């Protein structure tokens, strides 16, 4: 087994673990973290494909390694994932301020309604 395959399997495991966290964690911030885990796994799969694609260059005697197209896509993806995380963090901070909760589920808030209404809305 080569290193690329190993990292590919690692990426697959990360997607699985992240998906579990996204579905099972009630806390919104934990869901966001799990979402980023999935992202890391998907990017890693891209990286494995990029590395495999670079094998042709090595055979042809070019000094460079790796297919630059998936690598450029991952850089684009990392920037967009950061922007999405920033929006997610801002949304859930605002949600927690307004509702006094950090979970979406459940109609009954843990705080008394009077205190809940006091939040900025």
């Amino acid at each position, binding site marked *: 087994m080569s290193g690329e*395959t190993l990292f*590919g399997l690692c990426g*697959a495991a990360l997607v699985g*673990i*992240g998906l579990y966290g996204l579905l099972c964690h009630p*806390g919104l911030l934990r869901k966001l*973290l799990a979402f980023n885990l999935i992202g890391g796994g998907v990017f890693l799969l891209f990286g494995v494909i990029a590395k495999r694609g670079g094998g042709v260059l090595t055979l042809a005697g070019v000094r460079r390694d790796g297919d630059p197209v998936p690598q450029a896509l991952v850089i684009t993806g990392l920037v967009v994932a950061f922007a999405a995380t920033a929006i997610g963090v801002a949304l859930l901070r*605002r949600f927690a301020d307004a509702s006094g909760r950090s979970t979406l589920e459940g109609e009954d808030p843990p705080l008394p309604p009077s205190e809940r209404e006091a939040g900025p809305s």
Partner: protein
Amino acid sequence: MRGSGLAVTSALVVDGGLALLIIGLAVWITAARTAYGAAVGFMAYGLLLALVWVRLSAVDVALTEAALGTGLTGLLLVGAAARLAPYEAAESARAPGLGLRVLIGSLCAAVAAGLAAVVLLLPEPAPTLAPLVDANLPPTGVGNPVTGVLMAHRAIDTLLETVVLVPALIGVWSLAADGDWRGRPGSLPALPSSGPLTLLAQVLPPFGILVGAHLVWIGADDPGGKFQGAAVLAAMWVLVLVAGLRRPPLVTSRTPRLLLILGPLVFIAIGTAGIWLAGDFLAYPVGWAKPLILTIEAALTLSVAVVLGLLVAGPPVVDDPGPKARR
């Protein structure tokens, strides 16, 4: 023969250890008791992922992962975890039951197993665009194929990506309450002023700015580029803000807004000029590719650095409407 076999095996052991550490950290991030612990684990996870990117010969991606995916994302998540900690105790009561978790767990394992099968069954001469990029790199004048792809071959992706950062910031800002709209971004932790932090925020930024500019400049021929450089610049700005040496700009002020759109505007202007000068949108005239790419990269670096810093700084709040708020 035996020596090379040994080298391959030891490289595989290092790779295996790295993969196991990353999976262990992912489990920790999912299982940690507090979100704060999970967010700190996420930063360690990101740094290890950056090492994996180096092992996959993608140093450009490793730099982006370390600066952006780990540093700035980690700061966002740690800040949010500290802020949401009071609400966290009520979370565990809402966790799904054991049976449901086992069901979800086995389905997620099935997804992971499917992806693993795809990895193991990837087609054997791997499909690749690398020789094509390699053959078409000289006309762009840049030596780093990733920069060539980002700025020339797939410039439309990069254009859309830099443009989409602006709506993302608008999205963050629009979460402000009406009364807070004339305030300053307020999501950064307000730390008590301390000597070491102030010193760090005074000493580090000059070097950080040099490193950021260097990353942008060498990105033409070596690993680096505008996103990596801009992330370093944004980190320096955020350090100065967190230390309290400067305050975030008012969201209503003109200068940061102009800086935000400068990069995309320059990119669109040069791309549109390409319709007449080179026959296609985002095409560069022969011989002018490199100077134009450098111009776009310089403008984009400023805009991306400002947008990343403002995304970390969060929506505006009016905290202390005192007279000394002006600076």
